């Protein structure tokens, strides 16, 4: 599968599936700017990690770009007001993950003015050190826009040593999703400049922007922007064959470099750091233009949508409002999915707001939703092994998890599963493998949590035990001394006598 593109030898990854793209559906029209809704629901915690403390009071008027939560460290990403208006309060609002849950959101009532704070760019960023750039990105509320919402500052900071390559992930491999492709078409210069900013933040001397082979228009747009902006000639645009899940971080790295990220390691261990193209554009907005992250491109598509297209939507817009601006649902729409058809999450309602990681709203009709097939026993056909991009043994993992043998599943590297869904897609017995792996991972996490708790309790119990024993021993020793003194009254008397003598001696 290795081909040569612009001098870089491509390597490929094991497994994967070729799929129909369905991307052109939402790419026919340029992205529309979504209307700012009357009420926005901005989740306080939109990233992986802890939630920052609130910095606004109910009833307070806020401006677009104003920080709503504080950020104490790199893992606490601030949320910003997406438009100007009044903070109505903090409400529990439906969230996409975990399914059926709710999350604390700031309810913001727009005043229709869309007034912004004074933009705060980082002047002269080309000569700033990485510390200043990363702090600015953190204040700008950046979290991975590819979907995982990992805090960008936390990914960039750190003394990794020998970090030489920044990879920008434009390989949007999942069917239907086209927001990154659209972004690369309409804002190539923001991406190239964002790439330079991120590269400067980690002092990387090389940037690889990976796009998929079929993205002709994107390739041309990025190339011309690169010629204009990239005077140092560090950016390179690489086309890779379109195989799902090539946009997975580890798969992309393997395709580009031939190196496998160690299973308990990070790309940084290989001298690489990987970001989404949309994160790069947001980095440009934050650093060069001074705008915090308050909007993103969202694909609203699928056969269940009347006029599929991309929207530039404010964070906190309810999905229902985007869908109505995309013409609404068709009569046959039966399933709403956040993300793509392979790794997305089925949504219980369209009240859920757009967050920093929401890339695609997909409405499917009944015949695209796989019917709940009866699950048949595993027949060991190993189709799943053939397609697994992480090189795991899905059939053995399934058996271990189904038998509640979590430790065995951990030995089979359950945590290396990226939940891409390839195995479940090809399984002739219709076993919902990814659901099993998620169940197994959660059980294993819970078990490890319990083990940590038990170890802590054991340590504390033993510490208390030894303290009590010591105290008891001291008490015994004291009692023993007293007893001995009482047993020898003569000695006590002579000691008293000696003390009296001493005192007299001092007086004289």
């Amino acid at each position, binding site marked *: 599968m290795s081909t040569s593109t612009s001098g870089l030898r491509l390597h490929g990854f094991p497994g994967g599936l070729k799929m129909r793209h369905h991307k052109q559906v939402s790419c026919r029209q340029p992205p529309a700017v979504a209307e700012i809704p009357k009420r926005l629901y901005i989740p306080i915690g939109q990233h992986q990690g802890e939630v920052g403390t609130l910095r606004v009071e109910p009833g307070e008027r806020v401006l677009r770009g104003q920080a709503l939560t504080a950020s104490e460290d790199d893992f606490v990403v601030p949320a910003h007001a997406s438009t100007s208006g009044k903070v109505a309060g903090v409400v529990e609002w439906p969230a996409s993950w975990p399914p059926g849950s709710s999350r604390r959101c700031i309810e913001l009532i727009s005043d229709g003015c869309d007034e912004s704070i004074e933009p705060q760019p980082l002047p002269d960023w080309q000569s700033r050190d990485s510390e200043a750039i990363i702090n600015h990105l953190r204040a700008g509320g950046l979290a991975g826009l590819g979907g995982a919402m990992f805090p960008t500052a936390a990914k960039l900071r750190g003394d990794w040593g020998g970090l030489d390559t920044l990879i920008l992930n434009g390989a949007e491999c999942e069917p239907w999703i086209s927001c990154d492709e659209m972004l690369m078409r309409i804002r190539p210069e923001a991406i190239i400049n964002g790439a330079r900013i991120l590269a400067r933040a980690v002092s990387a001397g090389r940037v690889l922007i990976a796009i998929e082979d079929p993205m002709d228009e994107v390739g041309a747009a990025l190339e011309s922007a690169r010629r204009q902006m990239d005077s140092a000639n560090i950016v390179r645009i690489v086309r890779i064959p379109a195989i799902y899940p090539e946009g997975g971080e580890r798969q992309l790295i393997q395709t580009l470099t031939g190196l496998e990220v160690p299973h308990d390691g990070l790309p940084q261990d290989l001298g690489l750091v990987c970001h989404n193209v949309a994160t790069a554009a947001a980095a440009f907005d934050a650093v060069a233009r001074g705008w915090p992250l308050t909007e993103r491109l969202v694909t609203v598509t699928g056969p269940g949508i009347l006029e599929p297209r991309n929207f530039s939507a404010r964070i906190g817009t309810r999905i229902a409002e985007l869908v109505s601006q995309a013409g609404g649902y068709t009569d046959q729409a039966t399933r709403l999915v956040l993300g793509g058809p392979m790794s997305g999450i089925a949504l219980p309602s369209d009240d859920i707001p757009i967050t920093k990681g929401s890339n695609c709203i997909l409405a499917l009709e009944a015949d695209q939703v796989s019917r709940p097939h*009866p*699950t048949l026993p595993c027949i060991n056909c190993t189709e799943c092994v053939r397609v697994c991009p992480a090189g795991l043994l899905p059939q053995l993992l399934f058996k271990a998890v189904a038998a509640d043998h979590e430790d065995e599943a951990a030995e089979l590297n359950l945590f290396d599963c990226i939940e891409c869904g390839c195995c479940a897609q090809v399984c002739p017995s219709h076993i919902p493998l990814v659901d099993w792996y998620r*169940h197994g991972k959660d059980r294993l*996490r*819970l078990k490890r949590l319990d083990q940590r708790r*038990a170890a*802590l309790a054991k340590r*504390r*119990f033993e510490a208390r*035990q030894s303290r009590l024993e010591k105290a008891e021993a001291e008490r015994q020793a004291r009692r023993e001394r007293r007893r001995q003194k009482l047993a020898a009254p003569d000695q006590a008397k002579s000691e008293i006598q000696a003390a009296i003598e001493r005192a007299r001696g001092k007086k004289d």
Partner: protein
Amino acid sequence: MLAAILTLAAMVAVIGLVLLWLGRRFMPDEESLVEQINARLPQTQCAQCGYPGCRPYAEAIASGEADINQCPPGGDEGVRDLADLLGVEPKPLDERCGEHKPPLVAIIDEDRCIGCTLCIQACPVDAIIGAARQMHTVLLDECTGCELCLPPCPVDCIDLVERERPTVWPRPERIAIRVRAA
């Protein structure tokens, strides 16, 4: 004939000695067995088993004094674990010791606490802080939910609530194969 008997006797003696030595050399160490049992106990230190803590219970199991089904916090799963380790048949939890409950934590109603320090002395893992005539509070991360602080409290201001735990993705249910009606 005699030579054969002597040879065989000598062989039996030598092999017997070697086996005896090997048996001594690799005898299961009492201490390490206690450690292994203790590692499988939930470390709640609740004393519901009748021993003053998990380690004393582990020692009692190792010496054959206690049975493996006396730990309510461990539940049936814990009994199975111990049975696996000791190579015995698992048995249902001994109901006299108590019932299996989801993980709990103690919470002190701080308005009602009079600061008597009795619960502090009862806590087996030092998870309650406070001082005489000062309000007490529970360190939630350290609390094991053993309930030992409940009986000494003179004003009944301690409650046990279910510990918040991360949600687990539900176990996929089998969709039954439809059988054609006969």
